[in-house]
């Protein structure tokens, strides 16, 4: 009624009828808020009207997904695979028997039997408290099998029961394994636990994020190191009719808004495959870090990863063993490690080879070697002169030359 009244008043004014001065302004004739809002900021997009959802029961959804209703709004989908199941060219249980290299597992102990594999499907990618997981994918080894459990919620209200169910499974494990989970899935789940007032089970667990070792190994080889790239290029696993992860939020919103279950199965399948890939990626990366040349990883990057993981000996051994496969950076790195071990002849050989190809860094190394170790100032001068010829009279080169020449005298 008040909306109509104010509209009338507006029309009267627009048609030029001056309101009489006696008329008192009244607060009751306030224009509806949405009208006032859109007057100031016109609508930019035409969203479809939100019709209230067609009611679809949890039971129906559970049947569609071949799952089971655990409580109101919470559906559990369980699948069991033998540990010997091959996902691409690697067995899911490949990590059960092997020790993982340190650059993959980090400094902490790792036992695949005490690991929980985790991947979320969320309402968005932006992070922050406004994004929630509507599908939590979990995987773990039990009695020689790999168990996949997915929890799907069909309403916002069911989130708390899902978190409780997830916490119950995670609690008994020691390590979380994820792909990009250190920056995304982990913090997001912790935020949800915090908001729901449930103790965060992740705080007591180590976190192995496989994106990092994968990226270190392949970032200079592949255009990107997304999960799908690792699957295809390293694991030879090819998804068929996969739903792009970016479409998942829309699918779920269509479910809660309209009761629309279209593509819901595809989302669940997508998430299930993510969990399998996490498990199979452990043996795949173990192979990568042991025999980089076999999977096309860049040897020098693997060597540097061992350095960073505090295993200089493994790094050195790998480089020596793979010397024939090394590119220029690899050779420089190997020479550096020879120098550290004072194996001067070996280092010098590499530098000399590279210096012949006019590699300035190698020439500089030679100059330093001749000046400080070999004390052949004449030879050092020659190297520096070559350096100046190649890269111009940079102040530090000129300074070095003057210093060496003073020593000659």
């Amino acid at each position, binding site marked *: 009624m008040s909306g109509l009244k104010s509209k009338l*008043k*507006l029309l009267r*004014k*627009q048609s*030029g009828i001056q*309101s009489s*001065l006696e008329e008192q*302004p009244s607060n009751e004739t306030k*224009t*509806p*808020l*949405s009208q*006032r*809002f859109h*007057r*100031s*900021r016109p609508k930019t*997009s035409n*969203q479809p*009207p*939100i019709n209230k959802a067609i009611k679809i029961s949890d039971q129906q959804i559970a049947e569609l997904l071949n799952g089971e209703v655990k409580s109101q709004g919470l559906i559990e989908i369980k699948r069991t695979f033998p540990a010997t199941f091959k996902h691409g060219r690697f067995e899911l249980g490949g990590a059960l028997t092997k020790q993982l290299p340190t650059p993959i597992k980090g400094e902490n102990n790792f036992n695949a039997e005490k690991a929980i594999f985790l991947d979320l499907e969320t*309402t*968005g*990618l*932006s*992070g*922050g*408290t*406004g*994004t929630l997981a509507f599908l939590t994918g979990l995987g773990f080894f039990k009695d020689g099998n790999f168990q996949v459990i997915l929890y799907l919620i069909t*309403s*916002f*209200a069911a989130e708390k029961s899902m978190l409780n169910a997830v916490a119950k499974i995670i609690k008994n494990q020691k390590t979380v394994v994820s792909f990009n989970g250190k920056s995304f899935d982990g*913090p997001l789940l*912790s*935020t949800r636990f*915090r*908001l729901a007032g449930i103790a965060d089970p992740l705080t007591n667990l180590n976190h192995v994020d496989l994106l990092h070792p994968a990226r270190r190994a392949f970032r200079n080889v592949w255009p990107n190191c997304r999960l799908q790239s690792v699957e295809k290029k390293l694991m030879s696993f090819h998804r068929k009719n996969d739903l792009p992860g970016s479409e998942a*939020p829309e699918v779920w*919103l269509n479910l*809660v*808004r309209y009761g629309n279950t279209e593509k819901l199965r595809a989302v669940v399948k997508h998430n299930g495959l993510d969990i399998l890939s996490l498990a199979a990626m452990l043996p795949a990366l173990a192979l990568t870090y042991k025999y980089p040349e076999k999977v096309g990883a860049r040897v020098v990057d693997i060597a540097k990863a061992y350095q960073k993981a505090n295993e200089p000996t493994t790094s050195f051994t790998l480089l020596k063993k793979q010397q024939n496969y090394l590119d220029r950076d690899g050779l420089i790195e190997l020479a550096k490690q020879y120098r550290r071990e004072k194996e001067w002849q070996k280092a010098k050989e590499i530098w000399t080879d590279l210096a012949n190809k006019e590699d300035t860094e190698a020439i500089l190394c030679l100059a330093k070697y001749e000046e400080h170790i070999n004390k052949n100032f004449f030879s050092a001068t020659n190297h520096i002169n070559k350096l100046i010829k190649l890269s111009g009279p940079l102040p530090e080169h000129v300074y070095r030359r003057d210093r060496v020449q003073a020593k000659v005298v």
Partner: protein
Amino acid sequence: MHESKQDNISKGGVHGLVRHIQSKYKKRITGDLLLPAKKGDYRDFPEDLDSKITKALKSRGIEKLYSHQEAAWRSVQQKQDTVVVTPTASGKTICYNLPVLQAILQSKAKALYLFPTKALSQDQVAEILELNKAGELGVRAYTFDGDTPGDARKAVRTRGDIVVSNPDMLHQGILPHHTKWAQFFENLQFIVIDELHIYRGVFGSHMANVLRRLRRICQFYGVKPVFIFCSATIANPGELAQKLIGSPVTTIDKSGSPHGEKRLFLWNPPKINPDLGIRASSRSQSTRIARMAVDRGLKSIVFARSRIMVEVITKYLKDTFDSDPRKPKRVSSYRGGYLPTDRRETEKRLRGGQVDCVVATSALELGVDIGSLDVCILNGYPGTVAGTWQRLGRAGRRNRPALGVLVASSTPLDQFIVRNPEFFLGASPESARIAPDQLLILVDHVRCAAFELPFGDSDNFGNENLTEILQLLEEEGVVHHEGRQWHWTADSYPANSVSLRSVAEGNFVVIDTTANNKKVIAEVDFSSAPMTLYEGAIYMIQAVEYQVDKLDWDGRKAFVKKTMADYYTDAIDYTRLKILDDFDKSQKNNSESAHGEVHLIRRVAGYKKIRYHTHENVGFGKINLPDQEMHTTSVWWSIKPDELEKAFADRAQALDGFLGAAYALHTVAAVFSMSEPQDIGRAVGDGNATWFATTGPSGRGSIRNLEGESSVLEDESIKFRPTVFLYDNYPGGVGLSAPFFDSQAVLVERAYSLVKICNCPKGCPACIGPILASDEERGFSPKKAALTVLNLLNDGG
């Protein structure tokens, strides 16, 4: 140093300089104010103050508290939200540091400090750390802003006792990630908001909503922190603080700090061309005064309004004082854009008394400690009385006499100030206004808040109907109602698209294509883009001229190239304005006025090219841009047609009177509301959008209707009721115009005296706007016409 002190004494110090100016430049001084010295009012340390803190204070030379510091302590101890109004250099940081440090030592409290800028945060942390060291308090204080490295953030969140940040960071970085800050929020006992007076207008309205969100998060974590505000002198600090947090606040406004004798001169540069009313530049005058001060061994500071002006004045002064490279530098400059380390170095040299004169922008106005100065020169009016006093407060610390000189530039605002000294010298400082329920701002923050925590059906946020707002957001598909809660559903991070400094969406970026490398050099508010970024416009940044090549309206981009032009451009816009609703009106014998909602359409039709210095019109250009529509709030005045007819020979003259009156009202309204002139729009028309008037390309007032020229000036059968409008130049309004209505008598009277006092013959840019030479010839005085209109608006007196 020693030598200069001797000079200082031999030439009579500040008093000598005052006498010199009074005898030699008497004519330039339009106003003179003397504030006698004041003794300090001291109190003992509170008995319950932790002995470690007492020790820290004593080791820094503080033996007693000022009365206002002690009052703040008592108020905060009683858990009252408190605002302390403090002049510069009155030890305001102690007001909040004492209760905060005490609570940290006694109950592991956490505190959040908010400063408007990053630089101030740094200073603050440095100060706390010094106290910390002196008293071995073991308190951890960190800054958290855009410069905080990623790997340090976690430590700040989990280990900081005091986190020093800014509103933008709180809005975009902390609140949307509050769960990461859970430990911090669970122990949060204090929120300190310094430089309260900055939070006014659009920024203040946003801030109030950010604080609504903050309080919501605090409630989630079960805490109710005490707010401590510090403000420079404004008229309504208590009211502003109360509006920001929505609950009563205790105001402490009696300062116990001492100060020396202070003198203030208002200085108008002499006329160098009396015929044209052209005055010497303020820059040359400021430089001259600074030279006199330095010659007398007085430490001085020159405040300039732009970075480029800082550079120019510094150069002039260095030419005089630093020409000998063998001697230590006596002149220094300080502005934003310098590296933080350079700025810290300058601050250190200032504190150590090694600099004789510093030239600075307002970057030095806020809080930064630079020690004792004798003379403060303001090159141009800073825009507000409050801001002026704050800068002047830079001189005269530590009980020494001080001199401030406000040198007027040629802008209308400056000329108004120096020609109406009684206004400035007698003025109480301005009130700061905010509109926390401005609909667009409110809705944006409801959006951000819904992202942070779901809203419940019975929740409140602001004073509009929250359910209606949430329904609006549901229509947009960003929230979903389920059960009794509203859940965020969009895949977006709403805080990133809400800027705390503007209302409209979609700022324009200015892209320099001169060197083919496409560099973004500026950002322009959506509402001012049509007036400044049309194709052909000369756009200036730090006095470098760029010409707009191409404007991509939908992409919100303007492509510019460096140019050298001997002219600048001025857009011609037609504003049609229709009254939608009046909230309040008043009627007088001759006139009527009202306050309400208006709809305006602005068309930017073309632009003038105006040659520098001579100001002659050297060409026109056409502009093709979409019309700008805006609903906003406005105040308006009109004169009863009979009275108007009696007062003017013809309608054209009456119209010129209205345009001149509007110009003057606009100037005084900007002063009155502490706004920039562009925050307020003005228009003259009939209120039904049937006709509107502009100062057209010809310089004369002309009338148009929707089709073009209107016959209202000739056709006696059409009622002629010109109306002057002052409106909030933001979509939806931000509450600027309501106070204009409440204080309309004062406003009109000030506008009248602005025009009356101006000693130009028939009107000039300092009073009613530029007029044509032809007016001089035909004997018509637009100035007189404007005075007639203003007089009628105030019912003849």
